[in-house]
């Protein structure tokens, strides 16, 4: 038996892929998360009201989602409903997160696969070996950074600190957004929108070219699609868990507190992450899971891309490289929707309602860029007696491994291992945009 080990890069966190082969037959394909900090343990006994500041440190990429999920879990335990102004600001926070993440995944993580370079920052060394001129690459890099920066600025505007936001608090937010600041943010997003569309058009084009060159878009068997978007329009603030069955015609809907009745978690010996399944079936979360259930993005440009997408690939669509294109639709949506919200007054009305903390159990659900994220706390004497973080990347683990196996079978035969396999492994994993810091936490 031969064991092939592939280090991974251009993903968040530390992980590797191990594929076992015997005489040309693929025995297994494992995705191994290789880091662990132990957040469920280290927050034990911490005052519950510190979770919104401590838990964003689970991940600097998904920190905003953790910040909001933590606040929602406490509000669930304390039985309070935040005022409308707070909900708007929190939605902006989630949009900033989405914008920043999708721009990073598209243009920094996966664009290089389409251009045949090792990084969009690797200027001189790679430019010689490709037909892209050095200058063009620098331009792509600069524009990509500009778009993702608009996302970071949106997080700062709505959340205070730019990576680990602080503005969402139990009962609401610490304050609104002054008109002047909202107008500046809006102008920045309006400038970013055409650039994002242009980059996405280019990305779409080179993705099609790559699909043709490879002769495949990767694992395209049906799967269950999981999101916290229970409706026909996007809503990243999160309300109910929603599963579209693999046949594409049946749906299950359930509140976050019932997740265990539907999702089965198993730990594994070869990874610090483990995996989940839905009634014995492979689950997929992240962009494609959402785009597969959405009929209307609610904003014009994103709707045009959604139409283009469904006309070209159908709905539900299953090939994994479509996760990447689905991300582009959401990138455009995030900018457009944030512009809409920033056009409304954001400094009128109560930012928060008063509350009294109480012991009990709370669930906080948001739709993070990678799928539904749940924080589950049990609070005793105002302290965390038990904490649990249910992470979207973990829901994708079986889907990643299935897709890796499909790729391995394509590129391995009795005679040899095709060199393309290494690149294929990277493409497969990046399509799911896994976050290892979150998955292991």
């Amino acid at each position, binding site marked *: 038996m031969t064991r092939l080990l592939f280090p991974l890069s251009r993903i968040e966190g530390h992980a590797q892929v191990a594929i076992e082969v015997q005489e040309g037959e693929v025995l297994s394909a494992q995705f191994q998360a290789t880091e662990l900090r132990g957040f469920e343990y280290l927050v034990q006994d911490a005052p519950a009201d510190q979770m919104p500041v401590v838990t964003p440190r689970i991940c600097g990429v998904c920190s905003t989602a953790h910040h909001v999920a933590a606040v929602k879990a406490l509000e669930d335990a304390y039985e309070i409903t935040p005022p409308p102004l707070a909900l708007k600001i929190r939605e902006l926070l989630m949009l900033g997160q989405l914008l920043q993440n999708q721009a990073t995944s598209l243009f920094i993580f996966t664009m290089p696969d389409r251009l045949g370079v090792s990084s969009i920052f690797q200027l001189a060394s790679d430019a010689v070996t490709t037909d892209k001129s050095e200058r063009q690459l620098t331009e792509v890099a600069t524009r990509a950074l500009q778009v993702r920066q608009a996302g970071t600025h949106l997080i700062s505007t709505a959340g205070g600190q730019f990576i680990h936001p602080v503005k969402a608090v139990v009962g609401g937010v610490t304050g609104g957004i002054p008109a002047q600041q909202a107008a500046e943010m809006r102008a920045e997003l309006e400038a970013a929108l055409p650039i994002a569309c242009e980059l996405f058009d280019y990305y779409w084009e080179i993705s099609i070219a790559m699909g043709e060159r490879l002769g495949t878009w990767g694992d395209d068997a049906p799967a269950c699609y999981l999101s916290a978007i229970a409706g026909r329009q996007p809503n990243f603030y999160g309300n109910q868990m929603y599963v579209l069955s693999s046949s594409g015609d049946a749906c299950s809907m359930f509140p976050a507190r019932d997740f265990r009745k539907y999702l089965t978690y198993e730990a594994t*010996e070869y990874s610090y992450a483990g995996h989940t399944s839905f009634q014995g079936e492979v689950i997929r979360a992240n962009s494609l899971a959402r785009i597969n259930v959405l009929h209307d993005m609610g904003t014009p440009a994103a709707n045009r891309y959604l139409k283009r997408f469904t006309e070209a690939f159908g709905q539900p669509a299953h090939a994994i490289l479509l996760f990447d294109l689905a991300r582009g639709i959401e990138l455009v949506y995030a900018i457009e929707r944030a512009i809409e919200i920033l056009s409304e007054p954001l400094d009128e009305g109560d930012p928060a309602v008063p509350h009294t903390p109480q012991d009990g159990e709370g669930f906080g659900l948001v739709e993070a860029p990678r799928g539904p994220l749940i924080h589950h706390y049990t609070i005793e004497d105002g302290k965390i007696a038990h904490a649990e973080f249910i992470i979207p990347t973990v829901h994708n683990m079986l889907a990643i491994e299935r897709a890796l196996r499909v790729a391995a079978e394509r590129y391995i035969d009795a005679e040899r291992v095709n060199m393309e396999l290494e690149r294929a492994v990277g493409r497969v994993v990046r399509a799911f945009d896994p976050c290892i810091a979150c998955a292991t936490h």
Partner: protein
Amino acid sequence: MKNFAVLQLSGCAGCEVSLLNADAWVDQYNLAYMPLVTSVHDVPEVDLLLVSGGVRTDEDLYKLRHAVQRAGEVVAVGTCAISGGVANLGDRDEVRELFIAQARRRHVPHLLPKSHPIDAFVEVDRYLPGCPPMSHLFMMVLTGETEKTLARTVCQDCGRKKLRDVRPEHLVGFQTGKVDPDICLINQGYLCIGSSTRGGCGAPCTRAGHPCVGCRGPSDAFIEKESAVWMKSIARVFKGMTDIPEEEIQTGLRSPQLALFLFQFSDYADDKATIRPKEKVL
């Protein structure tokens, strides 16, 4: 063109995200290695090595030792690299044992008994504290700027007004909402430690109405001393401005979200404070 690399150990990648926000380096510096954004699997010879994350696994330790040999200058970036970071919150006997027992896996890197700062193993030339450090601070490290043009403390950047006659009697916790936008958070009963926290961040948290939890570490006045000195000075500020009982302040300071940062420049676990000279800290 200056070559630099970013070695990511066990952390949250927030430091790397912050670096990506400092887009000014893109056409001035060559990023030779940073697994988050480049597919290069080994650290090449570089002028500057930024290390983020703490040493949590045996693999972290191996990578760190290997990488510093190829670097001209080594910078410890962020709370995790400087102190071991948020992972230190699990450094209580009862938690640690449970955690390590549960974590054992056959085929992945092994966890060390605790999380370590990188300078427990290798020599560090500069420290860039922050959780994460702001993008402009990364640029200062890249350009080699040492001049301290930065605010001394967070208070200096905050701009909130301190009132004499408003003296809260108890802390209000961290989650009360409805924060007055202009008045010092201490006057409003928040455990804000911006008065002695290292400046340079621009006070984004306090400006947004959340107390500073001290992620930039102690100001130069306290950085070479053990954390008790810093904590005493915070207690003095609260005594001067409030009627909050001292134990309440002390308990607050030892609670996780502050302890995380308060102890970052002095060893959290045992008393042997490792002194980092202030000249090395941006």
